[in-house]
């Protein structure tokens, strides 16, 4: 991957972006157990495959979601959160 498509600014060099890790659903902090919270904070299924990830366009301060294959490093699509 050399270029990444920011949903606001279009195709930009990957050096302009920061990686924010996999997008995962946060459990209800008021209701979840310590074990569920630890699982959310630490544990990952890091096996290779198509993942939804947080990415950040640094110059414009834009957080967005990219669907990227972590084996091939190919990005399928990018979108703003909530617009999926």
């Amino acid at each position, binding site marked *: 991957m050399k270029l990444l498509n920011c949903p606001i600014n279009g195709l930009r060099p990957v050096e302009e972006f920061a990686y924010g890790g996999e997008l995962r659903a946060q459990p209800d902090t008021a209701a979840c157990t310590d074990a569920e919270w630890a699982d959310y904070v630490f544990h990952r*299924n890091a096996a290779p495959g198509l993942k939804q990830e947080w990415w950040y366009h640094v110059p414009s301060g834009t957080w967005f979601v990219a669907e990227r294959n972590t084996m091939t490093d190919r990005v399928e699509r990018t979108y703003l959160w909530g617009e999926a």
Partner: protein
Amino acid sequence: MPVRLIKFALSKKHPEPPFFRQPDQLKSSYDAVIIGGGGHGLAAAYYLAKDHGITNVAVLERGYLGGGNTGRNTTIIRSNYLTPEGVAFYDASVKIWENLSQELDLNLFYSNRGHFTLAHTESAMRTMRWRAEVNKQHGVNSEVVGPDDIKQACPEIDLSCAGHAPILGALYHAPGAVARHDAVAWGYGRAASNMGVEIFQNTEVTGLDIQHGRIVGVQTSRGNIKTGKVLSAVAGFTPRITQMAGFCTPIVIHPLQACVTEPMKPWLDTILVSGSLHVYVSQSSRGELVMGASLDPYEIHSTRSTLDFVEGLSSHILDMFPFLSGIKVVRQWAGMADMTPDFAPVMGLTPVQGLYLDAGWGTWGFKATPISGKTMAATLASDKPHDLIHAFRLSRFAEFELTGEKGAAAVGH
């Protein structure tokens, strides 16, 4: 010896026996199966046979022996860690390293060089003092030194780093060493094979047989095996094995790149690391500079190399050593580093009975090869985690009891 060498050179035959036996096919069952024929897996096989008399063991390697991170690291051995648990563990490893060539009857080119971790900021100096005090407390030889001592050990260095990042001091660790990494895998492999361990290359694990939360067998590309004990020592492939086993760990995979220059006459006697400039460099016995940098910034399950890496690393090396501007980089490569949130490994028992994990070795695994083999062998043999690896258990995350070693990582990742 020289006469023997001359005879060997002139001989049309190859009188040296192969390093290890290569059996044609898998047996239907083993007392223990080790997934991963790198240094860690082969060391575990060796100590299982030597310390515990368990010799009916298969080591399964997807590619070739030592072709993963064992042959891709920058070969640095040190024990100047930050936590008492880490210092005790890595110090035990260094003690085995010092006599390992004799023990394995193979020249590992273990070369004691001394190791400087350079500090360019006051906060880095503070971490160096902290590490020095923890190290001294545990009898490990580390001390904070000033710029003059660095200049004396390495007169070629530009202490101002081109004016960008003047060096204020360093953590000096006299036992710091380098070794020939692929020989470590061969030495352990040969010694284990001599005691009856069977090594299979080009043999990929495709599944794990688990019944009632207990491991009963391993499926491979060359057939199925029954076994009650499985050790996974597969570094960057760990998430694929834990997915087969049906549980998650905090491990994520980032590539870590390294490179070597063309050979030069010996000029760099010590190992130099700079956290701020993101470099570590030593000169190999062949004269090449072996250099590495920080992790690639995002997850990829790949060993591809990039131009960005060589450009970035070269610019920082030139800050330290401007005279290298005419020297060429001749090879670059990458390994898949299995990173953990606290920069400590994940070792010991797992939620699946009989499945043991030796993983989370990220960017710090090579130096731990002997001690991880020894402690994992003890853990497999007794089904209880060895005392030295208690702080590295998988359950530490769920217990919110991390073992913070980030401050002892070679470079700020």
